[in-house]
């Protein structure tokens, strides 16, 4: 009987870098050449088994890339974040940097951040060198890897590496029963707090 741990993971990054494709590869091992933009965010889950017999269930928030959808609620209670850029678009690394700065400023200090250069199958059009990204990741203490959602290369690795790195000292029950992080993750939603502030208005309706 393996222990299962549950963590909230958020995907961030500029529009069209392949966040949803990365998740689709991770969760379903599929790839679409054509994929619609994400509106708002998508929620999904996937479980990773580790060699030590434990398993990690990721509750994944796949967010829309446009600035206006930027919502702290998605990462506020996140245990880990995958910040994605497109290796063929140097501007997308800049965007990733700004996300990382925001996470470092706003998110839980213990959050594990992985910087992920996607579209590695398009290395002929590469604008972001591995050295540059890796150096930046080391400076900031981030995990780093390149992936191709299209070929699948590196995708499983990056999530498994995160799963390994996540703290599993607390028993699963503690994580799901306890503090706000676990509560948010358990429910797959971290919107409660905001909702608390606004949701009470209709409660007294007697009609």
């Amino acid at each position, binding site marked *: 009987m393996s222990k299962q741990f549950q963590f909230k993971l958020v995907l961030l990054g500029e529009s069209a870098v392949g966040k949803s494709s990365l998740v*689709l590869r991770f969760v379903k091992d*599929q790839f679409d050449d054509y994929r619609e933009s994400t*509106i708002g965010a998508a929620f999904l889950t996937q*479980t990773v088994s580790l060699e030590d017999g434990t398993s990690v269930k990721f509750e994944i928030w796949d967010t829309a890339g446009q600035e206006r959808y930027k919502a702290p609620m998605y990462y506020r209670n996140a245990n880990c974040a995958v910040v994605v850029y497109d290796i063929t678009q140097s501007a997308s690394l800049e965007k990733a940097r700004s996300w990382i700065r925001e996470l470092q400023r706003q998110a839980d200090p213990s959050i594990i951040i992985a910087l992920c250069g996607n579209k590695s199958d398009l290395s002929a059009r590469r604008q972001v060198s591995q050295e540059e990204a890796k150096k930046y990741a080391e400076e900031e203490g981030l995990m780093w890897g390149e992936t191709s959602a299209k070929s699948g290369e590196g995708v499983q690795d990056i999530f498994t590496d995160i799963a390994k790195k996540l703290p599993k000292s607390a028993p699963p029950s503690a994580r799901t029963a306890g503090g706000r992080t676990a509560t948010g993750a358990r429910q797959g*939603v971290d919107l409660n707090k905001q909702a608390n502030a606004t949701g009470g208005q209709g409660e*007294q309706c007697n*009609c």
Partner: protein
Amino acid sequence: MHDNEKRPIDATPSPATDCVQLEWDEIRQLSLRPGGLRDRRAELWTKLLHVEPPNISSSSEPDSTSALDGEKSRVVEPHPDERQVRLDTDRSFVLYPVVGDLSERESKQNELNDLIVEVFRKRRELSYFQGYHDIISVLFLTLPKEVQFPAAEKLSLHRLRDSMGSSLEPVIGLLRIVKRVLDCADPEYSASLNHTGKMPYYALSNLLTLFSHDMPTLPLVQHVFDYLLCRHPIAVVYLAAAVLLSRKAEVQRLQEEDEDGMVHSLLSSLPDIYDDYDDEETSIPSEAAVVVHEASSPSVLEESSPSSGASEEALSPNSSNDNYDNDFLSADESETDISSHPDDATLVDESSHTSELDTPSPSMLEDDPTLVSEETTKTLQHLQEPSTAPSGSFHIAPETTYPPEFSPRDEATSAPAQEAGVRRPRIHISALLEQADELLARYPPLDPPVSLEAVMGPNSVMRTWSEDPALLPSDDAAERMVASPHLVVLPPPLEDEEDSEAEKDEQEEREKVERERRHRRRLRKPMRIGSVVVEPKVVVGAALVLGVAMAVYGWQVTPQRHHSHTAGRELLRMCKYLGVSVAALGGRLRDGLVEMANV
């Protein structure tokens, strides 16, 4: 052509007059029928959007407005959002299939991109939001070329405008209204959803995109547009509520299984909606439902290859998934964990955004309060005629239980639910639309507890829209309205970012005040907006004091927008001090007070 005498204005019925003469009620009835507006669709959409017939608008030079418009449309400087538009149009037409081969799709994408860019270059104050491209793609695929641009422009300025400012806040306001409608329609169900989050964020995509992002087929989304375009813009809120109500059984099952988290995902997908008419076009006509790159597949139900996820985001309720036996999972397969279901990846949820929720100033009085015209009231009140339908129950077609190979792929939740024998409702679109109408009639937007005007500001399309084009703000005025977001949506009850105990207390206090206010209001008959004398009496003392202060303060600074913005911040602070929500004051009180102040 510059000679007005050749075309005497008052002798020729203006296009506007034509529009006024639209038989709105008749069209509304028609929109409920199977197939919706059918072959009259393009003609009627054009009229419903108050688009001038192209032959007139193209030939009218003397009008200074159209001359100006012409000037504006020639501006070639790119709009700041064009890059984002391109990113999205490059990924468009995945769901609504129009073409079979790549080059044809690319050319459609380019045309769509051009259409959207044209709107933003002309209406530069507007901002693009992801999902707007889905809406415009429906116009693009429905209307003749010559009216696509004016229709997109009118739609943007007078119906979509709230979402085309700098933030998502206005649509968050609509979510609050959805919540209120749910509270009324099914308090128990609504309360049970609070486990997932008190705000119905799962409805965000549908509100933002008028269902165009998630409806699985073009005919279905066209039918939804048929319904929406001949109604007040608030109708989308009631339709969203109707959709959420239709999922009740599934939600309850998930809750029994302690899968609250997945409720969120379930509700962000659509039920199995179908349409049937003429025995031909159904909810999945083959020419419409097939994902583009698999155009050879006879139907969505059969098309499903490992790479068929192109329509994942589409969440096609009619589509299936035969990828159940996904062997990718490394986790022990014995677990019944829903996460191991491959369909997990398809769930679209919504976002929101809290970062700016506390920034808008409540200086709602700084602008012209007369924007909330009597006409607006009237327009909204036509929605409020009592429903003759006695039943609040859903008219749902015979339910279908999907065999495993037909499992709906849009719900991760469907796996456990189906295993437990929960049926997925199959709903005729007409029933859904009628249900929305019924909700609209039963819980009118202006009356408590829905109280639209306590949520949306005077510049919201929800308050400026009118059937009569003469009563709409001018196109230019409408464009300018996005620059004052605090007049589009009123500040929500003060947000507590950090959930501290003190803030919880504050929240409870606010709720208490709100409850009291509501209670007192219930004791009275609903009154029209602008009733000056009576309304203040129903408000608790603190709110009244604050309201008067706001009215006077706001009135004094009205001429200077910049100052009043600061004043708004002051007011916000004052509100916080008093522990009274600005929004709780309600539109009626505010309007009444403005009138008092102006006397």
